């Protein structure tokens, strides 16, 4: 019999940690899908390496969420036994890899945010989150450098790479607003100094993204209509397919180990 989904007591802190853990897991999984398929060996290794960093961050966050929740859940149950509506990641990160340009634009938008976010979170009054932030910010800075270089190469490369990079920017732009959104459950954590207000990061994020995009001879869309829902479990149709791949084994053979 297939394994049923777990129940999660989403107190504000548990929810907050799960949202960030899901971000890292889902993007890490997307990057792992490139393994063996990247356009060149160096990029195959780069994407797998970045996926591994994100998986490591996800594990640290899930372990902490389990500890805060204090029920019977653990990192594996969070990853393998929650259904699509229980996932709390940003919509941007579940978007399919598409071509290499799309994967890099997605990575660039997110890494430019994660770099600022984790650096700010190093000052969190929550010592575990501050410790996870101190590790993650170094990794995010490296991911940002890697994806920024690709933005320049793709945008200022051939006509074909330019068109593909611009198309990816246009398609993914409306998913970037969710990174800076705050709901009531997070407002209390921000007031307590446990979380930071992501809206404070937006001007710097926009400066970094605009300058790289301009240098790459690309353009940012002018539309400011933004898509939301991932933080509340309202996902695009892509996440369910991703989870069926990620969770298949534990769902079909509950509790199986290597």
């Amino acid at each position, binding site marked *: 019999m297939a394994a049923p989904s777990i129940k999660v007591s989403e107190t504000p802190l548990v929810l907050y940690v799960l949202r960030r853990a899901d971000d890292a897991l889902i993007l890490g999984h997307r990057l792992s899908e490139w393994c063996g398929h990247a356009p060149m060996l*160096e990029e195959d*290794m780069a994407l797998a390496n970045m996926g591994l960093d994100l998986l*490591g961050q996800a594990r640290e966050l899930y372990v902490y969420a389990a500890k805060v929740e204090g029920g019977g859940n653990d990192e594996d149950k969070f990853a393998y036994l929650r259904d699509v509506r229980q996932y709390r990641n940003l919509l941007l990160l579940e978007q399919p890899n598409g071509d290499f340009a799309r994967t890099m634009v997605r990575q660039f938008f997110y890494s430019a945010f994660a770099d600022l976010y984790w650096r700010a979170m190093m000052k969190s009054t929550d010592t575990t989150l501050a*410790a996870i932030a101190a590790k*993650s910010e*170094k990794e995010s*800075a490296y991911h940002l450098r890697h994806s920024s270089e690709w933005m320049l190469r793709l945008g200022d490369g051939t006509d074909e790479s330019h068109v593909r990079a611009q198309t990816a920017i246009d398609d993914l732009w409306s998913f970037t607003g969710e990174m800076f959104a705050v709901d009531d459950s997070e407002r209390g954590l921000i007031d307590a100094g446990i979380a930071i207000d992501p809206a404070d990061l937006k001007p710097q994020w926009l400066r*970094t993204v605009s300058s790289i995009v301009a240098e790459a001879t690309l353009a940012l869309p002018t539309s400011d209509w933004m898509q939301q829902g991932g933080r509340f479990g309202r996902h695009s149709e892509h996440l369910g397919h991703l989870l069926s791949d990620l969770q298949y084994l534990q769902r079909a053979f509950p509790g199986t180990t290597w």
Partner: protein
Amino acid sequence: MVTAALSDADLRRRAWNAAATVVDPEIPVLTIADLGVLREVSVSDGHVEIAITPTYSGCPAMNMIALEIELALEREGFHKPSIRTVLSPAWTTDWMSEDGRRKLREYGIAPPLPASSRRALFGVQEVACPQCGSKDTEQLAEFGSTSCKALWRCKSCREPFDYFKCH
């Protein structure tokens, strides 16, 4: 065998020495003490607790290292030691010992640049070739065979080499 006659300080020293023999499975010339991964050894009532810190969040060598520490301590007569992972303060390549840097270079891996001040987004790095010492080198790929390395090439002796990334 561990006897009751030994003080906790003696036991601690023996436990540290045993744990310090464990090498990184990916870079077998470096011990976890050289790397700065071994953070702390404490003993109370004859029970040993070892604290280690991961280099990269997803470093797959950590499980292996924890297992090796357990085996090394069991061999020294310490039963069921506890291994604890600490995240704070975050590991940095600045913790790598001078001895460790020398061993890396001799093994053919360029050691990390010192002083991990935050680099500019496209910071210029000067990495010396571990084979011939020339600084006329270039990066081939930001990521290498493990999380902690990048791939470089020497333009003098033409040898490709691994660079242990500054972190």
